[in-house]
């Protein structure tokens, strides 16, 4: 029973990270209908910037802020420079551009900071069954999700962003600067991705450190339904708990397979995710 509680707490903390990553994917998918496969690479660069800033100044939280800021900037730049030029092409073009960016940034990280792992500190004390770091992961992701929800639901900016994402033509007619809103969405999402990476990376940072985390994050997003931010959060917790139980009771090497099993089980019952709205199709 003790073990079960441990695994549940651990899974919830990991799930928060997957949920944050899934949330960042869903925000972008809702805005531009693109799954941003470059998300882990953008977050990776943000983490490396935090590593450098913390190393230079000796302050962890300065690095943390730098990472979020870097995420914000890189997300905006990616949308402006790359995604916008393929926006009117087939969906595959955007996917391929983000995959290309993933390769470039991962390689660039290896070139600048070498492929060797560097030690990377936890935000807080990480010892114990439910450490301060675990609590921090849950609280920070929860806060970020609440802020995003409040932004979309209660502010004029959020209203414009929703309008730009769902009815771009009508929004443009009503005077919303659609392009700027999409860029804002990408920036916001990449900052959340950077937050997820800052929580996921410790104790070591290396160019491939986020690969598995990203697969779990995209699993969470797909399981929850790419069109639903609450689905992303629920999917993240589901995947985090599921993987924690499988790792704890059956062995950590089975986690990737368990992730696949969760994905197949959910999608064969509901092909558009657990929380997808029923879709109408035009014949």
């Amino acid at each position, binding site marked *: 029973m003790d073990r079960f509680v441990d695994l549940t707490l651990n899974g919830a903390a990991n799930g928060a990270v997957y949920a944050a990553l899934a949330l960042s994917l869903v925000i972008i998918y809702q805005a531009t209908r693109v799954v941003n496969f470059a998300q882990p690479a953008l977050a990776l660069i943000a983490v490396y910037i935090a590593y450098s800033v913390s190393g230079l100044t000796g302050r962890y939280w300065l690095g943390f802020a730098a990472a979020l800021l870097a995420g914000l900037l890189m997300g905006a730049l990616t949308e402006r420079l790359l995604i916008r030029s393929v926006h009117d092409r087939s969906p595959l073009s955007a996917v391929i551009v983000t*995959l290309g960016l993933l*390769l470039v940034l991962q*390689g660039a990280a*290896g*070139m600048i900071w070498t492929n060797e792992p560097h030690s990377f500190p936890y935000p807080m004390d990480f010892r114990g069954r439910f450490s301060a770091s675990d609590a921090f992961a849950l609280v920070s992701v929860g806060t970020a999700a609440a802020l995003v929800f409040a932004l979309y639901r209660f502010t004029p900016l959020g209203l414009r962003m929703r309008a730009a994402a769902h009815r771009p033509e009508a929004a443009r007619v009503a005077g919303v600067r659609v392009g700027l809103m999409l860029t804002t969405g990408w920036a916001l999402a990449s900052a959340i991705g950077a937050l997820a990476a800052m929580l996921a990376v410790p104790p070591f940072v290396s160019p491939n450190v986020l*690969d598995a985390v990203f697969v779990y994050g995209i699993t969470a997003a797909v399981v929850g339904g790419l069109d639903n931010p609450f689905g992303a959060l629920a999917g993240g917790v589901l995947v985090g708990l599921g993987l924690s139980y499988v790792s704890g009771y059956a062995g950590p*090497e089975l986690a*990737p397979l368990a992730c*696949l099993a969760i994905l197949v089980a959910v*999608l064969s019952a509901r092909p558009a995710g657990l929380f997808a709205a029923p879709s109408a199709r035009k014949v």
Partner: protein
Amino acid sequence: MASPAPRPAADEVRPPAGPPAPVGTRARWSTVPLVVRHLVLAAGALAAVLLLIAATDTVNTMRIAAVGYSVLAIAGLQVLIGASGQVSLGHGAFMFIGAYTVALLVIRLPMLPLWVNLLITVAVSAAAGVVVGGATARLHGPYLAGATLALAVGLPSLAVRFPELLGGGNGLAFTTRGAPPALAATVSTAQWQAAAVWFTVLLALTVLATVSRGRLGRRMRAVRDDPLAAAAAGIPVGRTKVAAFVLSACCGGLAGACQGYLLGTATPSSFTLALSLSLLAALVFGGMGSLWGALWGGAALVYLEVWAEDAAHALSLGTSVTNNLPIVLFGLILIVVVLLRPDGVHGAVRDAAGAVRRAR
């Protein structure tokens, strides 16, 4: 009510005028059955590859063989993504299945000849394709991409889970037979293996080209362009998608088998996410519209890495730059190709050939 116009009697109906009688070699060539044409092309390609292998050293022979199996894997992906419109990010998983099937067959049943091993690999990959294609046939776009991504990451962990059977993290090592004794004096092992790989690859490509020009290919393109219209026209959409997956899985499995046969090993670390993504990158680079794209993609996959390494050494760049140069180049090419030439190298070649033909 007007009586319907009298219909002409059956014997009055003339057959529609057929195409004009073929004139010249080019036209006569187009009347030869498709399979025969593809076989002739494949035989010509095999002859060219054999000449190339005979003329170069062992290192280049191995690279040429690597181009062979890469071309096959990318061609399989072309059928899946280009023709049937299903984006798979996990094709490395089928190469994993192929490589481990051959490794297990060689180790457990050493008396079987290579061609039997390859046939069994095709059967196993086809079964895997039915399972994966069947499970994912209802998924669209990003959901399919996510599922195949999880497959590519999840499957290699099987090898770590079952170390007694699949060798754990170190994988399986095995030795394959080289040239038959009668030829051993004139043909090196590498040359024999490269020839065997290209023979397999070209045979598989012939099947693939013939199928994708035939009824199944037309159905796949119809399903890709408009699933509803295809269903209304009586095409079984789900079954066509699964068929595309099976075809593509067979190519991936066979390519993995060829890789295992060449290297004599099957390790989980060679079937990473990066492999699956670079297969897709190579396909986009070569051009998704045609099987010819796979040729350019396969060559780029092998030689870009070689050239990047040579260039880095020539410029005496640091190791961390050298190690990461190929992946950065691949990413850059991917972005540039999509932004400037979405139809890839094959599109550029086709345009150039068209310009030459018009100029004449």
